[in-house]
């Protein structure tokens, strides 16, 4: 008599059909969650970790970020008579430790995440591409 205990009304299927129909007809709070990416971008959180940026005036070239970088991504190089970090994005894991350890709060991370490129060499971001001048901006 196992067949008697089965759900012959198929209420499970009907419940599922109602749920999917609500999605099709957009009944209730069921918005489209995907984004048409190249044409439309998602709103980023303020703490999103993208490409680095270095404050030209604050950075003292101490090399603490270089020491603390877990992947050995950062290297301190000379740029216009001062020393600044250079980041190899191809190896970076965007952990944000360099931002945390910076004693001058000179290093920060922007919302730029479209970093794909054609060669490994162009993934090495030197100070010329990382530096920004806080005073000029203000």
């Amino acid at each position, binding site marked *: 008599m196992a067949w008697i205990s089965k759900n012959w009304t198929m209420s499970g*299927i009907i419940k599922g*059909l109602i749920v*999917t129909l609500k*999605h*099709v007809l957009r009944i209730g709070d069921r*918005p*489209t969650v*995907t984004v048409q990416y190249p044409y439309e971008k998602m709103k980023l959180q303020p703490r999103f970790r993208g490409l680095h940026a270095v404050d030209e005036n604050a950075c003292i070239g101490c090399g603490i970020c270089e020491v603390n970088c877990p992947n050995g991504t950062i290297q301190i190089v000379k740029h216009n008579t001062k020393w600044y970090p250079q980041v190899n994005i191809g190896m970076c894991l965007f952990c944000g430790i360099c931002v945390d350890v910076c004693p001058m709060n000179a290093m920060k991370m922007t919302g730029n995440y479209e970093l794909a490129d054609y060669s490994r060499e162009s993934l090495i971001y030197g100070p010329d591409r990382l530096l920004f001048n806080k005073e000029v901006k203000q």
Partner: protein
Amino acid sequence: MWTGDIMFANTYELIVYILNYIGIYNSINDLFKMLGIEYVLRIIIVLVEIGVLFVFILLTVMFLTWMERKVVAMVQARYGPMVTGPRGLLQPVMDGVKLIGKEDLIPAKADRWVFTLAPFLIFIPALLVFIPLPFGESLIISDLKVGLLYIIAISAISPIAILMAGWASNNKYSLMGAIRAVAQDISYTIPLALSAIAVVLFTGSLSTVDIVTAQSGTWFGFIPKWFIFLQPLGFILFLIASIAEMGRIPFDFQESESELVAGFFTEYSGMKFAMFFLAEYAHLFSVSAIVVTLFLGGWSVPFLNFIPAALVPLISLGVFLVKTYAIIFFAMWLRDTVPRMRIDQLLNLGWKIMIPLALINLLVTAFLLTAGVF
């Protein structure tokens, strides 16, 4: 006109009537008569009909592929194709261009002849099914006296093509998929035919036009005289059996992506794959059209007796398409909701539940008809 008297037996007569109405039929006919080749005119008209039908089916299939992706996307809270054309409407065209551009591969150890023949053998019956289907009043290629039998017989060719494709590919997944597909096809054709016979008991005719005209009018002035109300169990059985015969998702054992790569068309690429794909969606459309013809009153609709006679073919075509797309939407909706069954559940459902229920349905219908209840 909605109450049963049909103006033209088929589209050929409709075209002749329209040509006469414009006033050019007699001159064309005289021209062909003068040359002594009257039959050529008839052939030309029939070829035009078939060409229009073919183009219509291909456009419908292209639209269905787009619609399927859109419905899945809406269920899954996505957009679906959006880039090509308005709302991605030209996506099927791009897919077609891509498939034509692909390399037409034949596996080295495949049976070349059977491998090449199988896509055609599955594609042509999918189109032949439309010959006795009434798309609207007098919009039918040929009103066969054995229309329903013809439809069931023609759809029974497809298991052979599936088995040919699976065997000739020389691939274990293809063969496994083909065997499953054939087992499924054969076990679900029986309840399909049995529940169709229960409808035929009411009409006493296998002609699809007779079946549609028997469903015009209303009971008590507000219930349409559709067979779904006389045969609710038959309708459900026919719908489930036809979805299973199509091999759509609750019963998609012929493909089952997670088990057999793509089933019997694993080894196909390019145009041959496109033919399997087109046949699948043409089959979806034809099966929905048959469900509408048998149970939902075909092109007939009650409460619209005031329409002028000249507009009837056009409006009835619209009504038929609306009903057919409702059934197609149901099939897509079901596909997006339920997961795949197990193979033993499928055969249990087919042989232990659907066939006995179809037989009981047929028996009760025959008994009630003989007793004179209807």
